[in-house]
Structures are given as C-alpha cells and as structure tokens.
C-alpha cells in the first residue's frame, strides 16, 4: 500500500505542488514565529541576567496603605537606610539607585528615541561598577552628564559636546563628560540613558535625599539569601522590601517570556488562519486526485483491497505530501526567524545579540502541524475514495464527479448560519465586555455556516455577474458556467479567500469607526487650541504653565493637576483645573446642573456621581494628601470621555494640599487659534524642549490615526499570508479545471475559439471565483465590524459605523488582481493545449 501511495505522489508532483506550497507557507509561519520569539526571548533573558550581576540584594520602599482619611504613600528610602544596609556584616558595598524620565535631544534638536524609552539615572561616586566608562570621567553637578555609548554613536555625540535635555520641563544644556557602556535592556532595545551625579539626579527627579532602589553587594562567600536575611533583620519591619538579585533576574526573565508569549500567541493565531485556509486547498487537491483515479481505485477494490486500505493509501499519500511540506516549511521558517531578527536589527529597535534558538519543540511542532493538517484535510476525500464501488473499474469512462445532493449540506448550513446571526445579533445588544465571548462564538458559527452554504450561494451570486460577463461574449458565458460547474470546489476555493477578507474588512471597519469616534470626541470635548504634555506622559513642572501664561497671544490656560484624596474612606483622584478658564478649554456634554468649577464648587462625571449618589447641590468632604479636609459642593455632572473624567476641582483649592504639585497636561487657548506661528511661539517659550509636546487638536487626531494605521498595517501584513495561501488555492483550482476540461478546450479551439478567447475564459473564471470569495468576505467583515461596533458603542458614545468605501473598493480590486494573477499560468497552459491530443483524449 505504501509503495502505491508513494508512486501516486511522484506521479502527481506538479499537481501536488500548490498543496505543498500552501502547507509549507503555514508551517514556515509557525516555525518562523517560534524561532524568532525563542531567539529574542533568550537573548533578552541572557542580557537581563547580566544586568543583575552587580546586585545581590535590592531594597525598595514599601507602600504605606491608605487608612481612613489618610492618603497612602511610600516609606522613605534615604541615606540612613543605605548606610544601615551597607553596615550589615555580609555587605561589601551598597549603591543607591535613582532613575526617572530624561529626554535628550539629538543634534537636530529632536528627541532621541521614543519618549517612554528615554531614561535618566545616577552615576554612583567616582567609579560606578554598573556603568563602565569608555571615555571621560564621572559627572559633577548640573552641568555635567554621561551618556550611553549606543546613544552617543546614534546621535554622533562625543565627550565635550553640549547637549539639550530636559527632565520635567525646563531645558538644561549640560556638557558630556563621559561615555559608558551598559547592559540595560531599555538601552539595548533602542532607548537612551543619561546619568548625573547622585545628588543632581535626586534634585532633578524631585526626590532629594531619596533613592528608588538600593543595590547591596555581598562580601565574597556570603550568599544572597544570607545577606537578605541580615538586611531583613537590620531594617525596620514593613518599611523596606528586600529581593535577591536572583529573584529579580528570575522575575524579569518571567516578565520577558510573558510578554514574548503574548506576541507569540498573536503570531501563531495568524499562522493558524493561514494553515486553516490551506486545508481547503489540500482537500480540493485530494478530492480531484481521487476523482481522477476512480478507475484505478475501483480496480484495487476489485482485486481485493479493503475500504480501509483504500482510505489508508490516500492518507499515506497525504502523509508524504505533508512531511515534505513540513520539512521545507521548517527550513524556510528558520530562515524567516533569522531574517526577522536581522530586519529588526536594521531598524532602530536594537535587539541584544544571541544565538539562533531552534528548540526541539519547534521542530516537533512544525512537523506535526504540517503533517496533521494535510492528513486531516485529506481524510474526507480518502473516505470518499473508499466508497467507490469495485464495479466502477469496469466502466470505460471514469465516473463523473458525484453530484450528490446538496440538500443536507444546505439545510445544515442554513441552520448554522441562522444560529450564528442570531447569536451575533443578541450579543450586539449586550453591554461591552459581556458581549465579547458570545459575539466571538456567534461570528465563528456564522463563518462556518456561510462556508457550508457557499456552494448554494455561488449560483445566485455568480449569476448576478452575468450581465458584466456577457460583455466578453462566449468566453464570459463559458467562464460563468464553468465556475458554477463544481460548486463544492468553487466554494472551497472562494472560502479560502473569504476568510482572509472577512478578517481584513472587519478590522478595517472597526478601526475606521473607532478612529472617527475618538477624533470626534476629541474635537467635541477639547476647546483648547493646544495641549502641552510631556513626551512620555510624565508630569510637567509647574514652571511650564507659568511660562505659557506669559507667552504672547495666550488668552487662557489651565493645568490638569492630579491629587489623591480620601472620600468616604476610599481613595479618589481629584483633578485640579483653572476654574476661571476651564469652561473655555473643555466642552463636555453637561448632564445636570452647570459646568462651574471654582471655590468649593466642583463638577463630576455622571458615572462617579451616580456611584456616590450625588446630585447637583450634594456636598461631601474630601481629605487631601496632607491630611487637611475640605467640604466640596457638586455644581453639575458631565459625560466623561478619554480627555476628561472624575472630579474637577479648582486648582487653587487642591494645589496647596499637594506635596508635589505636578501638572499632567496644560491646556492653552490663544487669541488667534491654531497656526504654525502660534505653535512656534509656544515651543520657543518653553525653550524648544525636546521632552515637551505641544499639540493642537489635529496633532492629537493624527496621533490617534497613526496608532490605528500602524495597527491595521500590521494586521494587513499578517493576514497577507492567508491571502497568499488563498491565491495558491485559486491557481490550484484553475489548473485542475483546465486539466479536466482539456477535451472541451480542444474542441473549442477546433471550432474556432482562438487562444486569446481561451485565455480570457480561464481568466474570467478565476476572476469570478475570486470576486465571489471577496464579496462574501467583505459582506461578513462589514457585518462583524458593525456588530463589534455595537458592543464598543456602549462604551464610546460617539461611536458610529463608518464604512470605509475606498478601502472596500481597494479590497475588491485586490481580489480581482488576485484572480487575474492566479489565472496567468493556468490560462497559458489552457491556450497552449495541443488541440489534437485534447480532442482525442478519452
């Protein structure tokens, strides 16, 4: 049996090519993902382990919980703690660590790297073991800094250069006194690290005399655990938590593999989609191979092969095909993994070096997936092969493809689709997160249902294209009829394309609608001309608002100050705003009362008001950070949004009670609205600070749009895989059709259809199948996009379905291109068929 199966594989090499390619692509995607994520995660773990070389035990401050009216806060990790820990018997030395956001500008004045990756820290003493100096010397005072060698190389800085930088607002222009190397993961990933002397760092970061962490090094021979025990005993209980370097490294390693596994799962989902689509092609190919071999299989049955043996011979064939595809896919996947890493390296995202990791699990997974998927897809055709009666061997003409009634299939499909639609519709009326799971379930049901129904749908939908096809004369007419001739095959081919396009369209509809909703909300609620914030979302120094206020043309400003308070024994953040100006800067929808902030009058979003049972006129007591209490009165309630939520209090009331009054944002209204000149003026007033973003509404919208575009492009890129596999399917189906109909094509040529006509016929058939799949996919995608939007709308009042007509048009055009491209080779083959052979062939 095995030999027969093997011979069959070899005999049909060309026809199995597309199947092998489809499986191979899927397997390559899977193994590429595994190789890439394993390699990166291994490299990060190694580099992070190195980063903890200098730490035996790390001390961090414990949080003192909020109690009653007392706001929670951190215990102090100060010089006294450091001195004490350095004096325990097992300790060799201790280093105080200070770190925070520090933006540093390149020679062009722009921020280096992404905002959240711009870090600053302290250089300990005259020789910090954490940061070996490549050149120069330790920094001293505000005028001197060190920068890491990667950043120096990237920006072209060297010792002695003056740099523009900022920590919380004001621009500093220190001189680089040295360059150091570091294993810091953030730097390895493309961030920057700027070091000050310890006192300067503490001052700049607003933590005078305090450390974020204290790293204690053990004496030789003292274990990390022993040192930890000593420190636990020496330090006051409950104020400091101690962690060994090993624990830290382990925790970090775990965090890395966690974040990697998220990415891995996402990539594997897309690989799974590509493989799923591939099964349609495999099933199609094997169905055809079995149909072609009816006589041969019947002969085997006639000479005594059992049904099971026949099925097995088909499965063995599938096994061989799957194995070949899986092995080539694995090799390609390892190549992809290596390629992706060097690709990341060629961008700014530097990845720590490390060997290419191909785990045994990767190899096993790749092979298993490739072989199992192929055999699973070939199982049904294999069973069909077993059902061929031995008498079929005696018939001279090989049996026509059984036109088994589609009634059962259609009934089942209709039921499943109806159930799917019902579940999706029911889920769409639910509230936000409650509806997610049922909606996903309904969507899966509907996709399966539509897939089962595709043969039925193919007739009316393709018939609808008849008027267009009529333009192409006989070729068009024949193409239309050929495309519905084998509805199952057409359906499987179109479904492969449908799945990809459903996902792509659904994502596009949702992203487009969401983007518009957020933009609408931004423009509806923000009346300010400019919003000033820190590049990384850190708080701004109060200086920033002062400077903005004094700038020409600025008519009103308001900070947004965050301060914790206790209300009814619960922690609640208050937002301090400029009561006099806030009405000109934001314009949320007011639900009840009036939007009036000033003195003891506050406004609160309706949701919060409801949870406390407040109405306009209600009064409550808030306890501030410093323990002082204040009676406040609700003046009105408003509809919350992403820019504005919670309790808005006049900053004059809030600020005096704050230990550290920092602003999250500053909103600015100018006399002549937004203009390039105004923006320039504002930026100049802030000292052209690399760390501060001055954005108008359009910038905010663009930022949102950019985020969505990036996400969509990534999804498109990943789904492109599924589409490529679908294209292979179309090529496969057409090649099969041409092969099966060679006699007809020969006849057509004989009675006068020229090569062009034949080519056009095949091309149009391809086009019809592709567009059929595209229309189904886009239809489903829009439906899912709408349904998911209904869920989102419960959270986002401005949400409204936006149909991306231009994109849908592009998708259709893409499907048409896919159709034409997929037909290139089969059409050429058809046109070149030897007429005489084709007519004679029986």
């Amino acid at each position, binding site marked *: 049996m095995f030999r027969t199966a093997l011979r069959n594989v070899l005999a049909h090499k060309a026809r199995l090519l597309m199947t092998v390619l489809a499986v191979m692509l899927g397997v390559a995607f899977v193994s590429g993902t595994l190789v890439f994520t394993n390699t990166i995660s291994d490299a990060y773990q190694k580099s992070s382990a190195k980063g903890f070389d200098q730490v035996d035990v790390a001390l961090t401050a414990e949080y003192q919980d909020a109690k009653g009216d007392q706001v929670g806060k951190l215990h102090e990790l100060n010089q006294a703690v450091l001195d004490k820990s350095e004096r325990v018997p097992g300790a060799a030395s201790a280093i105080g660590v200070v770190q925070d956001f520090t933006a540093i500008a390149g020679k062009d004045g722009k921020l280096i790297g992404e905002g959240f990756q711009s870090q600053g820290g302290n250089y300990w003493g005259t020789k910090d073991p954490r940061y070996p100096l490549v050149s120069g010397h330790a920094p001293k005072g505000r005028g001197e800094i060190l920068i890491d060698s990667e950043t120096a190389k990237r920006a072209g800085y060297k010792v002695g250069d003056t740099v523009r930088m900022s920590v919380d607002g004001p621009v500093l222009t220190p001189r680089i006194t040295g360059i150091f190397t570091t294993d810091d993961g953030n730097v390895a990933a493309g961030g920057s690290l700027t070091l000050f002397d310890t006192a300067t760092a503490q001052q700049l970061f607003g933590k005078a005399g305090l450390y974020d962490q204290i790293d204690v090094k053990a004496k030789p021979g003292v274990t990390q655990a022993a040192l930890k025990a000593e420190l636990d005993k020496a330090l006051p209980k409950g104020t400091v938590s101690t962690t060994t370097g090993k624990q830290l490294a382990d925790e970090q390693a775990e965090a890395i593999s966690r974040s990697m596994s998220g990415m891995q799962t996402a990539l594997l989902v897309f690989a799974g989609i590509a493989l799923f689509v591939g099964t349609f092609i495999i099933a199609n190919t094997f169905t055809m191979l079995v149909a072609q071999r009816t006589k041969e299989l019947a002969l085997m049955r006639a000479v005594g092969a059992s049904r099971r043996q026949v099925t097995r011979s088909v499965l063995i064939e599938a096994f061989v095909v799957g194995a070949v595809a899986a092995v080539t896919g694995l090799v390609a996947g390892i190549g992809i993994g290596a390629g992706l890493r060097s690709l990341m390296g060629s961008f700014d995202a530097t990845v720590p070096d490390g060997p290419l990791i191909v785990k045994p699990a990767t190899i096993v997974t790749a092979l298993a997936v490739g072989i199992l998927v192929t055999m699973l897809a070939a199982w049904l055709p294999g069973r069909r092969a077993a059902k061929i009666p031995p008498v079929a061997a005696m018939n001279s003409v090989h049996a026509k493809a059984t036109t088994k009634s589609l009634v059962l299939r259609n009934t089942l499909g209709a039921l499943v689709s109806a159930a799917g639609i019902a579940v999706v519709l029911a889920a769409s009326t639910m509230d936000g997160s409650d509806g997610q799971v049922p909606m996903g379930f309904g969507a899966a049901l509907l996709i399966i249902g539509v897939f089962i129904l595709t043969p039925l749908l193919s007739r009316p939908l393709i018939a609808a294209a008849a008027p267009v096809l009529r333009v192409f*004369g*006989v070729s068009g*007419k*024949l193409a239309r*009829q*050929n495309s519905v*001739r084998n509805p199952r095959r057409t359906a499987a081919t179109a479904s492969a394309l449908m799945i990809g396009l459903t996902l792509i369209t659904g994502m596009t509809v949702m992203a487009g609608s969401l983007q518009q909703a957020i933009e609408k909300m931004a423009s509806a609620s923000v009346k300010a001309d400019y919003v000033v914030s820190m590049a990384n979302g850190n708080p701004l120094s109060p200086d920033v608002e002062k400077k903005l206020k004094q700038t020409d043309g600025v008519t009103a400003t308001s900070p947004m100050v965050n301060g914790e308070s206790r209300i009814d024994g619960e922690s609640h953040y208050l937002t301090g705003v400029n009561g006099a100006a806030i009405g000109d800067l934001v314009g949320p929808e007011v639900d009840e009362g009036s939007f009036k902030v000033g003195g003891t009058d506050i406004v609160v979003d309706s949701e919060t008001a409801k949870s406390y049972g407040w109405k306009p006129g209600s009064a409550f007591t808030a306890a501030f950070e410093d323990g002082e209490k204040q009676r406040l009165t609700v003046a009105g309630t408003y509809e919350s949004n992403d820019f504005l939520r919670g309790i808005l209090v006049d900053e004059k009331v809030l600020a005096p009670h704050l230990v550290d009054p920092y602003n999250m944002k500053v909103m600015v209204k100018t006399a002549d609205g937004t203009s390039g000149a105004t923006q320039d003026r504002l930026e100049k007033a802030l000292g052209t600070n690399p760390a501060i973003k001055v954005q108008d509404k359009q910038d905010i919208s663009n930022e949102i749009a950019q985020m969505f575009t990036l996400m969509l492009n990534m999804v498109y890129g990943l789904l492109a895989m599924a589409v490529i596999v679908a294209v292979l399917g179309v090529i496969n189906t057409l090649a099969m059709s041409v092969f099966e109909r060679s*006699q*007809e094509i*020969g*006849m*057509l*040529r*004989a*009675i*006068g*259809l*020229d*090569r*062009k*006509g034949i080519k056009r016929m095949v091309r149009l058939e391809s086009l019809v199948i592709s567009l059929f799949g595209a229309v189904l996919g886009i239809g489903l995608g829009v439906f899912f996009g709408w349904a998911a939007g209904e869920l989102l709308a419960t959270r986002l009042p401005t949400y409204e379905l936006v149909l991306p007509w231009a994109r849908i048009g592009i998708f259709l055009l893409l499907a048409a291109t896919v159709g034409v491209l997929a037909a290139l080779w089969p059409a050429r083959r058809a046109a070149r068929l030897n*007429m*005489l052979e084709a*007519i004679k062939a*029986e």
Partner: protein
Amino acid sequence: MTTASLTDRATTVAARATDLSKIYGQGETQVVALDRVSIDFRQAEFTAIMGPSGSGKSTLMHCVAGLDTFSSGSVRIGETELGSLKDKQLTKLRRDKIGFIFQAFNLLPTLTALENITLPMDIAGRKPDRQWLDSVIGMVGLADRLGHRPSQLSGGQQQRVAVARALASRPEIIFGDEPTGNLDSRSGAEVLGFLRNSVRELGQTVVMVTHDPVAAAYADRVVFLADGRIVDEMHGPTADSVLDRMKAFDAKGRTS
C-alpha cells in the same frame, strides 16, 4: 436548387491538398505520416477516407482541416492557402469556413443543445440565420430537445446536436472524425443519413474519416490510404465493395 447549379458546384473544389507531406521526428526515428498526398474535395460531395490504423487518414483530415501543421506541400480551403496562415487566422478560418464532428461528440456539458448548436456563431459574435437554423434542427429532429443539456441526451442525440452544430454556420466544408465510432448501429445510420442528406439536399461538402465499410457506403466517393499515400479511390461505394477492397489491401499487405 436546379440540377444545373448542382452540377456546376460539383465541379468546384471545396478543399485541395497538393503534395501534402507530414513527417514526425528526424533521422533514424523519422516517421512519414503523409507522403506527398494530392487530393481534391469537390463541393457537394460526400467523401470517406479509409485505411488501416496508422495509414495517415486522420492526419490527412487534421492537416486539411487546419487542426494540424504539415511539413510540405499545400492545402487550400476554398481560395485560402492554409500553409501561410498564423494560428489566429487558422482559428478564424476554422470558425467561419469549417464544421467539425468528432467521435466523442465533444459538446459542452454546461450548454443546452441549442446553445451548443449555435456555439461557433456565438464565438464569432454572429447572429445565426434563424430560418436556416430551424431547418437544420428540423432535419436532425431535435426541435423538442433544444433546452436539454448533453447529459440528458442519448449518444445518438448528442451526435445529432454535433451534426447540427457543424451545419448551422453553413461552412464550406464539414470534417467528421469517426463520427459514428461511439454510436450503436441504428444511431450511426441516422447520423450518416443526415450527413448524406445535407450533401444531397443542401449541397454541403462533407469529408469523413472512418474505418467502418458500412459508414463509408453512405459516401459518394471513398479514398483509401495506406502508409501515408492514397492507394485507391472508389465512386458510388457499397458496404460490400468497400469491404472487398479492404480485404484485398489486407491480403496485399500480407503477401508483400
């Protein structure tokens, strides 16, 4: 149609092969399928080409019908010389001037009987001559089967559709390649009867390749081929006379 015009037409040549040769391969493996064959197919004449398998009878038909290329010599259909035509022009010639009937019927299963009949004209983008079409359909007796698909028709009916397809566009010449090879004797006789009628009553020119003496007896003239050469010709054949002649060749073949 008057007798005079019929005679007139009988003298006109519908297709002519002159010194037609077809050689496959080169050197040692060279096979001569046709060896300088010259033959005329006159208008309104029903010619049968006979010969043992490998005699070149199908090759001759394929070359004259513009389905296959030839190595030397010339072929004319009406006034057109085939040797100089490109594939596109050949295709157009087959479409407009030649009708085909194949052994395996070769109908398109997706088209109805009527659509199959008008297919050559559809390809050409011409409207069929309604009156002519009706008379052809009437002749082959398919009027009540026009909406059927080939799979719903018997073999004989399918071949009648094929005959109607060949006649419908009024080609200058119709070629049949074993048109009765896949039919039982009754259906075969019907189809041959239609072909003969089309020659007698409509003045059609028909050339048919066959190995069946009974089929050949329907023709006005039988041409015998052996080893790529025309070895004999017979006018007004009967099944017996054709059979005798074939036996003679066989005997000669055995003794030589």
